[in-house]
């Protein structure tokens, strides 16, 4: 009795974890029963969450052991505080020790939790350092981005450090969020209420077009699971195809990224809207209405 697919965007983090991994395989670390909550929020008499808005643990993806980190966008916009950040860092360091097939990082976050200011900022840099350690150990980190909060602020940077980004059309990646840009630079610079514009600049399709996201999938947990499974199961195969195998050559990865950035710099500075880019690429003016499958097909045809 299912209608559409099970929406990734609308699911809570716990449901995502459950549906992404092999049934019943997940075991959580520092789960909500331990009630490790934020001391900063408590000091401000703000509501706390028993898992501080992030779920970490281990499980199986198509029978391969993986470490799972999933932010809950519905608690404080998935923002990173001290405990939240420590849980992510701890899970990453555990990966260095246990050597799972991959780390799945389900990002759904506006960035640093403002209530925790410096502690949150420090947490972000600790996450980055731990992430490098995981990559150094030859374990790919796969970002899954499709929640309502997207991946912004510090978590936007973390996302771009990952080996692979699987994103839905509804997913977004950015540094400053649209509202922040509008507040600082004015509505002429960026109208945050123009939802169409926001998605044409930060959304999954434009990020995939620019090569910043690796794969565009439907807003469907099963589609995210299938895409992630492909990377873990035959990971060398998939990653080799793209020349991005961090387990064998991190220099190569960096060079590829450098090349990509070089290509970005050559883009016309006048392009301030995804639609302009798509039109120039010959994708027409209906890109937003293409299904991810149609879009991927058209884009791959252009890329090859």
């Amino acid at each position: 009795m299912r209608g559409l697919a099970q929406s990734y965007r609308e699911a809570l983090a716990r449901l995502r974890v459950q549906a992404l991994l092999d049934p019943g395989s997940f075991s959580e670390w520092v789960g909500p029963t331990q009630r490790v909550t934020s001391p900063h929020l408590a000091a401000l008499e703000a509501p706390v969450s028993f898992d501080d808005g992030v779920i970490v643990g281990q499980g199986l993806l198509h029978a391969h052991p993986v470490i799972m980190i999933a932010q809950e966008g519905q608690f404080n916009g998935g923002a990173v505080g001290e405990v939240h950040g420590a849980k992510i860092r701890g899970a990453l360091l555990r990966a260095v020790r246990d050597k799972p097939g991959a780390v799945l990082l389900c990002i759904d976050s506006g960035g640093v939790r403002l209530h925790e200011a410096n502690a949150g900022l420090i947490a972000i840099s600790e996450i980055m350092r731990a992430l490098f350690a995981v990559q150094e150990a030859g374990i790919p980190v796969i970002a899954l981005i499709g929640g309502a909060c997207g991946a912004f602020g510090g978590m936007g940077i973390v996302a771009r450090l990952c080996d692979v980004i699987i994103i839905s059309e509804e997913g977004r990646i950015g540094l400053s969020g649209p509202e922040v840009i509008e507040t600082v630079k004015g509505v002429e610079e960026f109208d945050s209420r123009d939802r169409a514009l926001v998605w044409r600049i930060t959304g999954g399709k434009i990020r995939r077009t620019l090569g910043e996201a690796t794969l565009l999938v439907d807003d469907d947990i099963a589609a995210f699971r299938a895409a992630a499974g492909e990377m873990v199961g035959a990971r060398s195969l998939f990653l080799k195809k793209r020349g991005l195998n961090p387990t064998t050559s991190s220099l190569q990865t960096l060079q590829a990224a450098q090349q990509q950035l070089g290509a970005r710099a050559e883009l016309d500075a006048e392009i301030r809207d995804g639609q302009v880019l798509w039109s120039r690429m010959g994708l027409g003016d209906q890109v937003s209405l293409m299904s991810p499958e149609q879009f991927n097909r058209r884009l791959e045809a252009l890329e090859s």
Partner: protein
Amino acid sequence: MDALQPIRTWNHEALRRQARLERSMPFSRGKAVATRDMVSLLEALLEPGDRVCLEGNNQKQADFLAESLAACSPQRVHDLHLVQSVLALPAHIELFEKGIARRLDFSFAGPQAHRLARLVQSRSIEIGAIHTYLELFGRYFIDLTPQVCMVAAQAADAGGNLYLGANTEDTPVIVEATAFKSGIVIAQVNEQLERLPRVDIPASWVDFFVVAPTPNHIEPLFTRDPRHITEIQVLMAMMAIKGIYAEYGVERLNHGIGFDTAAIELLLPTYGESLGLKGKIARYWALNPHPTLIPAIEAGFVERVHSFGSEVGMEAYVAARPDVFFTGADGSLRSNRAFCQTAGLYACDLFIGSTLQIDLEGNSSTATLGRITGFGGAPNMGSDARGRRHASAAWLKAGQEKNGGQTSVRGQKLVVQTVETWREPGHPAFVERLDAWQLKQDMGMALPPIMIYGDDVSHIVTEEGIANLLLCRSPEEREQAIRGVAGYTPVGMARDRALVENLRDRGIIRRPVDMGIDVRDATRDLLAARSIKDLVRASGGLYQPPKQFRNW
């Protein structure tokens, strides 16, 4: 045979009409009026005390004509009696503030509800009555016949024939009543064409037309973004489908315009299909072309739809589905409020809609303090047509239930109210006393503005379950049945537990579990579309949503 008896004239109205036309001659060329001459034309032909209909519907508004009338000199034009469906525009209110109009008979005042209430309190307006649409249309032919009507059309040709486009709405009934009782018909059109796609109003019924400076504004009132449908609404929609549509075999129906009923529309192709209900329920509709109906149409649930008016963005989709919608030879939708209301009243077995307040007798009202909203069409559709003669399975079953299991001489329409127990924090949907009573007192009305009369309501659906009021055998049972689905509202908390359990044993109150519905299944994943974009995709790109609903 007395030669001294004064000769009685029988064409007084026609002579008056002639005089009006002669006075307006300087301001028109044939039937065509220039925009700059419109105010002078109105000042010339209108007489104090005239009954005037300014076409204003749910959607289409004769906005240029309303503004022209409001710009008339109150010395020359005053004390008009407005007889019209909807008071929607600021210009409508201005007419009363300036004294151009004094009396009002109407149906609905959505956006101007607050200002209207203030006019009443400052005694700047006399309200004749608040009508349902059909009542008002009926009175156009009895005692409220307009002397001058001002309507909105899509296009005119040089001779004055009118093309109404997809939004026919009230125009035919207004023009019929005016033109055939020696009245003056004035139309504002969006464009003048050499050749009309079709003639909806013949030129001989039209006295003047003007090409308005801007096309008449149409609001997308019937577009519900599926993004905002909640899981509670999904649960209630599941109950309505399984507990009412399926049980009674409801094939002909009308839906309200809220998110509750949009949820039902979006559950038909998923949940409805899984229950094997395709072809058995929800086949024929009196409904505007709701975008949320697209998935059910595409899935083959919906066979036919007749509409009151159109909906912005649905033009191409409707034109591509002529088997489903009523369309003209030009391909565009043919809507008609008067006929569709009649269909909703007499030819449908079920009405379901939401409301703001329900009392212990089941009376429901959308009136809140300080606002006079009126009714529109819901009371016509949401009432049992006592004069109905033709039978249907749903109508007979409902009639039998009301009659204690016996076959009666008549059946009963299913009139369903679907509400969440709390509308919003602090505002329960269930109340001991409707705000409508206070409003009646404050506004000096003859009656409280009740939207749906309690004795017409057959079922109330909330997240707590369904109350079947047809099966109640006393006012006490009815009250407890309502309290029994009122949840944690004060009305619900005051229920008699034993009585409510008894009602549940008898199937008068049914909880989701009693219907075999697992509340954990009620997720948004059941919706056939979760966003406007899903609707566009379901329509194969034919549905073109207005800008405010796009995020691409």
